[in-house]
């Protein structure tokens, strides 16, 4: 593996991490905390939406983010030929 390849792999990784962090931040700190009062005016079933994000939705999204990250990273590993045997 050339140093350029290595740098490209790392850059791709950082981009993916950044994207995942944005999702992580928006669903918890955004919807569950900073915007909670705004979203609470929206009904979601028997819930106020902001409250639902704070006590349910953010957790589901966290699980999704990790599996998404693992899936994309495994693809990157293959693309750059660094997958462990």
């Amino acid at each position, binding site marked *: 593996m050339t140093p350029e390849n290595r740098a490209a792999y790392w850059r791709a990784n950082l981009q993916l991490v950044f994207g995942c962090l944005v999702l992580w931040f928006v669903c918890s*700190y955004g919807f569950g905390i900073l915007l909670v009062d705004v979203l609470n005016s929206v009904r979601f079933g028997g819930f106020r939406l902001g409250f639902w994000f704070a006590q349910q939705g953010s957790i589901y999204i966290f699980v999704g983010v990790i599996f998404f990250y693992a899936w994309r990273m495994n693809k990157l590993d293959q693309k750059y030929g660094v997958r462990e045997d």
Partner: protein
Amino acid sequence: MTLQTLTYLVVGASFALYIGIAVWSRAHSTSDFYIAGKGVSPLANGMATAADWMSAASFISMAGLIAFLGYDGSVYLMGWTGGYVLLALFLAPYLRKFGKFTVPEFIAERYYSKTARIVAVICLILISFTYVAGQMRGVGIVFSRFLEVDVTVGLTIGMGIVFVYAVLGGMKGITYTQVAQYCVLICAYTVPAIFIAIQITGNPIPQLAFGSEISGAGISLLDKLDDIVTSLGFTRYTDGTKSTTDIFCITLALMAGTAGLPHVIVRFFTVPKVRDARASAGYALLFIAILYTTAPAVGAMARYNLVNTIQSGEVGAADGNLVYDERPEWMHTWQRTGLLSFDDKNGDGRIQWYNDTNPDFAATAASYGWQGNELTVDNDIMVLANPEIAGLPNWVIALVAAGAIAAALSTAAGLLLVISAAVSHDLVKGIFLPDISEKKELMAGRIAAAFAIMVAGYLGFDPPGWVAQVVAFAFGLAAASLFPVILLGIFFKRTNKEGAIAGMLTGLFFTVGYIEYFKGLFLKWAGAPWGENVAEHWLFGISPEGIGVIGMLLNFFVAISVSYLTPPPPERVQHMVEQIRIPRAIEG
């Protein structure tokens, strides 16, 4: 069969299972003892991590806390799950690639320094012991209530069980026991939740029942709850009383703290490959999420049940409240533990439960003839008493007891193992006796584990008054000391020895100092706390629970600045960082 016999049977059977697993999975080498020989499948590791992580606090206390805090309780739900995203994205795969035994070992090699290692060991031991004290208290509560044995006897039994499988089996024994404990605790948590969800809403899935209509009432559970609690002078259930800044900081401190807890990080050392570490973090959070999305539903339903029991009729009506002499059986039982108490202040023979600290509600309460709140209820009993409140069969109650013990023991064992590894691997082998043989190191590890169990047991027998507050301490400390330097070690190659040590010490002293200033945990003898713990006095309006965030930022800032002012790390360390960033070994 009586409840007590049944509880003995269920708890006894679970203990027999744990011991059986321990004998089957004995550790034969230091690698088995510290990291289960790197042979744990990602799914099994996910379950073990979930049991390791979900402590007595998660199982016993959290739903109760949420029941009384309402929206403010969200900090625990988001904080204690969102940390796994940080762990998966920033730490787990790289530390797995590093491929050694302990967290201080990573810090020692990455920062080429014994001093850094010692500082890391001190942080680790402070964090882990404060945490383990809370577990032992949980074991004590469960034994004294459900098995009706003396707390001392109960603790001794609990210590004995942990001793057998932690000392014999090391990480390998602990891992497979935790898998079994996860199954026990998740059943124990969800079964009563399902029963109660059906009783209240007719929907068997607690996560959905949480947002459903109450059977036959035509109003949703949360709306009804908002109505009743506001009519009793409390804040609306779906609103909070904490400031947005404080909620933000507490959540972030809990998340970063989660990602920096050594006993969680080390679980990702046990899987065979880097990609297993990534998947494993996902499985761990999935298994955790089953409990963490059930907990707020349990909290809301428990609050609803309790308030309905007490406020049996219209608010303010002379016959609207529960008659003391007609209180249900479970209240008698829990009164005996001292966790539930009544005081008939207005002498009407009925129980009033309302918010007597709300000045806007005082006049209304007075017009009802109420002279103060008459019910005191400890957060901790909400989950444990829930099956009794809902009138569920005895086997469910026995299961809950076994689940609570599983939650406490699995976490205690994980903590004890990282403490013993820090002593035998980082202090004995890493610093004092580098030439020690593997066999002797294994023996040192077992002795350290045995000793740590004694100390933990002592903390359980004689819990310092501040056990409930130390959670903030452990998380704040992990967020402010270990998390930043591990993260920088992987993502910022320029960080050097001087920066890391300065950063850890700054984070540590600032956070400990702030918590001591307002809460006075360890420095009572020196006159702490020095400041009154109210919002007006807090730095930027951040409570001691959330201050770890500032400690963490200071740590990052100091570590980076000092690194730039001092020489860069040596070539071989920079090469090591390159290596851990890539799953497969790179040549040259």
